[in-house]
């Protein structure tokens, strides 16, 4: 069953991000690993595109361990916002490490820096995993401001973005407003797939 779920997700993601500049994906936490798997498998299949995967949820090393074939891919670069704060000091040429998830200006700068090395003709995609974890480390207002800035900069450079938002029970509706800044919202529900 899990495979059909993942395939279904891949298809929906694929459709949404080719049409829209920015996509927000809302999902319950129990679907989180299926979704990241679907996303990463999708990225692996899109070798001609340039991807930047910002992880605030899991350290880069964990992602690599979980999806072993990622480290060899040329088309995907990672920005890890939590390893350093957790005291992990590994380095990797495929990953930029940000000192702390509170360093939002630094994060914004590194995202643009990574895309600077990509030529104009290549399709560019950004994944933010996730907006909800950014809000754990920062006030909602500053994350909103960050997200506005980021949206302007990615739009100006024709970078498509996918932002994840993990929904918890009884979640603050303010948080939902953040995800609605995207052009298109996908809600992941088991029944949808």
């Amino acid at each position, binding site marked *: 069953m899990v495979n059909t779920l993942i395939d279904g997700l891949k298809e929906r993601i694929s459709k949404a991000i080719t049409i829209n500049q920015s996509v927000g994906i809302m999902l319950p936490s129990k679907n989180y690993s299926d979704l990241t798997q679907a996303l990463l498998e999708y990225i692996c299949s899109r070798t001609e595109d340039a991807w930047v995967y910002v992880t605030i949820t899991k350290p880069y090393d964990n992602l690599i361990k979980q999806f072993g074939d990622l480290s060899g891919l040329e088309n995907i670069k990672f920005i890890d916002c939590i390893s350093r704060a957790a005291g992990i000091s590994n380095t990797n040429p495929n990953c930029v490490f940000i000192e702390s998830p509170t*360093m939002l*200006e630094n994060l914004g700068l590194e995202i643009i820096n990574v895309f600077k090395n990509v030529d104009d003709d290549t399709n560019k995609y950004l994944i933010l995993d996730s907006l909800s974890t950014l809000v754990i480390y920062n006030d909602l207002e500053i994350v909103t401001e960050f997200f506005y800035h980021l949206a302007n900069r990615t739009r100006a450079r024709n970078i498509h973005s996918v932002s994840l938002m993990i929904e918890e029970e009884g979640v603050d509706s303010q948080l939902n407003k953040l995800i609605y800044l995207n052009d298109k919202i996908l809600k992941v529900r088991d029944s949808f797939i």
Partner: protein
Amino acid sequence: MPEEELCVTGMADLDNLLGGGIPVGSTVLVVGSSGSGKTTLCMQYLVNGAQQGERGVFFTITEPLFKLTKNMEGFSFYDKKLIESGMVNLIDLRIISERLGLDTEKYSVEDAAALLDVLKDIADELNVKRLAIDSITALCYRLQSKEMIRDFIFKLGSSLAAMNCTTFLTSEVPPRKFQYSQHGIEEFISDGIIFLGDIERKGDLIRTFQLIKMRGMAHSRTKSAMIISSNNGIELAPLLKS
């Protein structure tokens, strides 16, 4: 507005805030507390200049040369070839004052004059267009009165300006204080002030960068976030206001 010749720092974000660059011949005070990035900023400024064919000299007082070079080697911008070729010259001011036979703790008026002459001679002989003194605080500490400090910086600044050399002086201040120098004089004799500070966010310190003044330029005064990385050295980004 008259066309003024500008010294392009080569740090694109900074040049943008400045409105192109620093008026050639200016003396700029780079103010910040310990670890704020003063030395890095000066070095990147000199290296960028050298790459554009402008020779530079870095006078260090606070750090011995071996430590300075070791720290700078961590940055991609630090190109050893520029040092070897003499496009960027690193000089330990303490060694110079020793050779001049100056008292290491206190300079008399004659000592200060002798040191000033040596600095001018070096700048002149090497035909440098960019110069940094790291730090002017440590140098001023050896000068015994406000008058001597004023006189020293003023004469240094005017001689270097006459050589079309644009100068960075670093100024050490206590953390999180709105103060530009230890002696309260340096900022008034300088043409420009760059303030490297920080703000606290959720217990982390975010580096900030602010242009306080730049005579002759209509520059931005907004506070930016500053990022130091081994790949790009110093970069600026709009500071989030929330």
